């Protein structure tokens, strides 16, 4: 038997090597996601939607019916699909720019309405596809193409804390977590929990993933891991923010 690359079955081989840069975090997210879907056995009814941003490079990534949408608009497209055909499992995949900036109204309102879809957001602290501008998640003092002297929180605020925000506005049945490509096993389990919610018709799940962008960070492998595991985690706590059943916050009513 020929030795074959250890690719998830769900990865569409005809398009591999994929289009992401060397060392990119996106394919790692998509690896964990593939395993989660395979383990749940929902390949036959899962629809994948990707945003504009480097996530668009995943438009032909999976053995899944896939639609590449517009910058920030993957959430409404997937909501539209889900509302039309609730039997489909819908996953919206986007970057931090797509989810927290231009598409934030969709994220917030899909969360509030408890839409029965899963949103996966790759947080790489920059607008990667457009060449490394400031994103809502850019760290204080981080240099980007539009903060050439470092992001000044006095002028542009602190990084957006997405899962924290979504947890604050979703009902108890929702699932909200932040994973990282540095912990793929954990990430897979987060995805499975989120998808499980959807399978059960229990509503919205949101998983942010800390993800590397060596190209725009201009980092080598060591620096990439360091930024991911040490710099980013100082602001972005990895873990679960809302697990159905485990109610943390006090609630009105």
């Amino acid at each position: 038997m020929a030795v074959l690359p250890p690719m998830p079955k769900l990865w569409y081989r005809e398009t591999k090597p994929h289009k992401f840069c060397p060392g990119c975090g996106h394919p790692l997210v998509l690896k964990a996601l593939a395993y989660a879907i395979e383990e749940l056995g929902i390949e036959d009814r899962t629809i994948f939607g990707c945003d504009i941003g480097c996530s668009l490079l995943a438009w032909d990534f999976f053995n899944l019916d896939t639609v590449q949408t517009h910058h920030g608009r993957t959430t409404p497209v997937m909501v539209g699909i889900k509302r039309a055909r609730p039997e489909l499992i819908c996953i919206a995949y986007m970057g931090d720019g797509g989810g927290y900036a231009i598409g934030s109204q969709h994220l917030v309102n899909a969360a509030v309405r408890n839409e029965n879809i899963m949103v996966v957001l790759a947080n790489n602290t920059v607008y990667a596809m457009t060449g490394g501008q400031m994103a809502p998640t850019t760290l204080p003092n981080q240099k980007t193409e539009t903060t050439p002297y470092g992001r000044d929180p006095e002028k542009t605020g602190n990084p957006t804390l997405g899962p924290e925000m979504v947890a604050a506005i979703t009902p108890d049945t929702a699932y909200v977590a932040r994973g990282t490509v540095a912990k793929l096993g954990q990430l897979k389990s987060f995805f499975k929990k989120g998808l499980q919610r959807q399978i059960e018709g229990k509503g919205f799940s949101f998983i942010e993933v800390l993800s590397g962008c060596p190209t725009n960070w201009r980092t080598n492998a060591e620096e990439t891991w360091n930024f991911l595991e040490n710099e980013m985690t100082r602001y972005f706590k990895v873990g679960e923010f809302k697990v159905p059943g485990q109610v943390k916050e006090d609630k009105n009513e």
Partner: protein
Amino acid sequence: MTTAYKVITKIDGKGVFHLFPELCKGCGLCMEKCPVKTIGWAKELGVFGTPVVEPGHGEPCIACKTCEMVCPDCAILIERRKDEKAD
């Protein structure tokens, strides 16, 4: 749908290190994560014309499969050399 892939197989410590040069983009992520630092640059070139990786640059491989897991391109497959269970 099974495509044949070129493979470079090298043995190191407990591991059989299969590297698929048509997939490896030479990012080095695997190298950094190897607990025994056995991964280093090879002289073979990968899909982007940059060097691929190989074992044998540090302590012997313990077949932990970390490199396999962290490779964004699924360019490494690790097999255990002995009849130990693979996972």
